[in-house]
């Protein structure tokens, strides 16, 4: 269950291929990619700086993936999260779950994203035409995580 935090971009096809390997038991691959948008809360976003808490981040992501694997019958999962400077259209985060069937893979993938949004120590700072601002956490993210 690999988790990675990195500055570099990721290649979805390569990541999926590496995770599923040549395993004929895998019948479903569910993937989510989060991207940087150019507008947030009615302001133009020129760029985004993502910081994290080294040491805790990997541990938190591992814990989330372990919980997903305990709750759903899936084979493996991957989380890649970028940090540093990002621009609109850039990829931020990748979650891939592989398993025998789509239902479990979809659910585990969504669960990992919802928990990541509220429990993994990442913070976004936006650069807008009016200056910099820290992104505020959304109550709707807590509600989504609480569903599980």
């Amino acid at each position, binding site marked *: 269950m690999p988790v990675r935090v990195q500055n570099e971009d990721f290649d979805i096809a390569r990541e999926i291929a590496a995770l599923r390997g040549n395993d004929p038991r895998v019948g479903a691959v569910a993937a989510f990619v*989060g991207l940087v948008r150019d507008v947030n809360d009615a302001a133009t976003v020129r760029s985004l700086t*993502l*910081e*994290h*808490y080294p*040491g*805790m981040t990997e*541990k*938190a992501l591992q814990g989330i993936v372990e919980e997903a694997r305990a709750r759903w019958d899936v084979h493996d999962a991957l989380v890649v*999260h970028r940090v540093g400077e990002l621009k609109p259209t850039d990829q*931020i*985060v990748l979650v891939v779950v592989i398993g025998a069937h789509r239902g479990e893979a979809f659910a585990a993938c969504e669960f990992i*994203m919802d928990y*990541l*949004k*509220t*429990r*993994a*120590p*990442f*913070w*976004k*700072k936006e650069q807008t035409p009016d200056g910099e601002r*820290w*992104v*505020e*956490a959304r109550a709707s993210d807590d509600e989504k995580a609480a569903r599980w």
Partner: protein
Amino acid sequence: MITLVYLARLREALGAAAEKIELPGDVRTVEALLAWLRGRGGAWAAELAPGRAVRVAVNYDMARAETPVKPGDEVAIFPPVTGG
């Protein structure tokens, strides 16, 4: 001694990224530690005031008000997370 780590907006508001402090004898929980830090006044009292959205991790695990704090711990204080 414990290590305190401040992250993201709180690091900027408090003007510190990390510090080591001698844990006062009567501070044994996250709640007591936050109360002690508020006693510094100024930005500490304002940013860590009850009702402000502040999250705490002890030794890299998310903590609650009653989570124990003991010498040697690393305690991180930060705003609600906004990754993904």
